[in-house]
């Protein structure tokens, strides 16, 4: 879809709740079956040899290496950061990942561990994962993370407000969050598993892009279903169409449940064919994952040597 109206319209649509609702509900519908069929069809692309090698390295560079557990410790984060810098200790050719992603209170050890690496420090904030806190609390959460050195903030939207149709409230929260991010990039987590329909995914994507999110992100990883090919398809269409309309390139981050190289490569195919090759960069596409990286490393090794590896040949953090 190419939206061919004037960019000034964008400010109008967020004038009030009614305008925003009209805009979001005026977006073309998503036929679930057709979207699933398109996603499944893209998944039949056969990516082999040189293409696969390129895709695996690109995927590694797009990983937001993530740990978001109550049991996380500074030690675990430091170990993760070492892996992020140099995913394969035996092979310096393996690129660093895009970022590590931690809770706000663990940003500090990450900053220290990643100094000079170019690896970004992402932090989930805004009362992640539920977002159920007062706005002031959520914004303070962001300020704390940014103050500690986070260069990327992964916020969650208020799904309750979204599902209740209070779109402007969701919009305003994103705008407010963006304002306290300062230089940090803002990724807006839609939690598509709770939005339930692809129509809602499209609307929430546009809402987040209109509000200034640098990335739209599928999931917290704490809700099932998380990232899925049809959801990724709809979000990639949203950033593509938003770019057509506004000229701004915004990113997409898939998170939750992506564990295998095969899935990652399929998503890269989708990025390539749906959004376009401009999006094939860590600046515009990310995988939020933990175990995915090891599978990418195993596949990389298999491609390089022709032999299959076992899990003992990659590091477990």
């Amino acid at each position, binding site marked *: 879809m190419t939206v061919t109206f004037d960019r000034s319209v964008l400010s109008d649509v967020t004038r009030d709740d009614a305008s925003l609702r009209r805009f979001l509900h005026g977006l073309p519908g998503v*036929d*679930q079956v057709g979207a699933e069929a398109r996603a499944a069809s893209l998944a039949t692309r056969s990516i082999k040899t040189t293409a696969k090698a390129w895709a695996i390295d690109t995927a590694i560079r797009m990983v937001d290496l993530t740990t978001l557990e109550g049991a996380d410790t500074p030690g675990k984060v430091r170990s993760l950061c070492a892996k992020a810098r140099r995913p394969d200790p035996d092979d310096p050719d393996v690129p660093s990942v895009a970022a590590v992603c931690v809770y706000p209170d663990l940003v500090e050890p990450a900053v220290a561990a990643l100094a000079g690496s170019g690896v970004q420090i992402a932090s989930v904030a805004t009362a992640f994962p539920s977002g159920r806190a007062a706005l002031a609390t959520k914004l303070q959460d962001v300020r704390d993370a940014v103050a500690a050195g986070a260069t990327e903030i992964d916020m969650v939207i208020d799904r309750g407000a979204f599902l209740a149709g209070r779109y402007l409230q969701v919009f305003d929260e994103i705008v407010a969050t963006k304002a306290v991010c300062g230089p940090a990039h803002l990724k807006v987590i839609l939690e598509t598993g709770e939005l339930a329909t692809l129509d809602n995914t499209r609307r929430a994507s546009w809402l987040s892009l209109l509000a200034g999110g640098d990335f739209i992100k599928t999931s917290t990883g704490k809700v099932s279903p998380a990232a899925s090919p049809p959801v990724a398809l709809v979000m990639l269409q949203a950033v593509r169409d938003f770019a057509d309309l506004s000229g701004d390139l915004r990113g997409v981050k898939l998170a939750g449940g992506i564990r295998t190289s095969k899935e990652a490569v399929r998503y890269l195919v989708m990025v390539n064919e749906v959004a376009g090759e401009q999006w094939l960069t860590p600046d515009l596409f990310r995988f939020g994952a933990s175990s995915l990286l090891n599978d990418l490393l195993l596949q990389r090794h298999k491609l390089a040597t022709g032999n299959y590896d076992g899990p003992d040949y990659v590091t477990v953090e």
Partner: protein
Amino acid sequence: MSERVAVRKTYKLYIGGAFPRSESGRSYPVTSHQGDLLAHAAQASRKDVRDAVVAARKAFGGWSKATAYNRGQILYRIAEMLEGRRAQFADEVAAAEGGSAKAALTLVDEAIDRWVYYAGWADKYAQVAGNTNPVAGPYFTFSLPEPTGVVGVLSPQDSSLLGLASVLAPVIATGNTAVVVASQQRPLPAVSLTEVLATSDLPGGVVNLLTGFTAELAPWLAGHRDVNAIDLTGAAAEQRTALETAAADNVKRVFVPRSTIWADDPGTTRMTAFVETKTVWHPIGV
């Protein structure tokens, strides 16, 4: 006191709900089974065929989209109208076909019952001939019979009323419109039937009736590219090949009956012959 001089009927065509004479100005004598002159009937021409097809096509949109319930009601209304004129039709059938008055009345009654039979089918046929299709995917899919379009009907030559009812009612019950060529030698009951049709809420043009020479009219119907199907029941055996050949010009559906024993249970064959199956798909998603 002299006997009253009867008012005789002019037997005309029935096209688009009106009763014109043949545009050709021709007529031909119609005699009883004993050879007595009964009347002069209009002898339709190719241009009457043309006009009748235009009328039938014009009526098709409305009739095919009328509710099945409505079509059933109208077909039943035809039976009601016939019932009130049993005696007249019995006389006409007896004159045309011979046989006893009682036998003629039986034929009329069977003809009336045939209209009732198909009246009842109007809102059931799709239920019997249609179904959903359990496809292997997230799609709701159903197949329904729809009327073929304009059907040319060559009425049986022998059975002037029961035979006519048997070939005409199934065609219009499912929503087709018809251009009917009446029995050449026995057209008068058919013409009287059009008077019933005209007073039964049947929209003009749904049934158009031509009297005349079957062999002259049939090729124009068979070759007409805006006629979707043709029933060759009343065609002469020696003309069949030519008619079927002409029908191929627009891939017409051609119906040749297996049985012309009109007293038999008609079943669904004559409806099935003039419907198309339409399959519709739609995804199932949220």
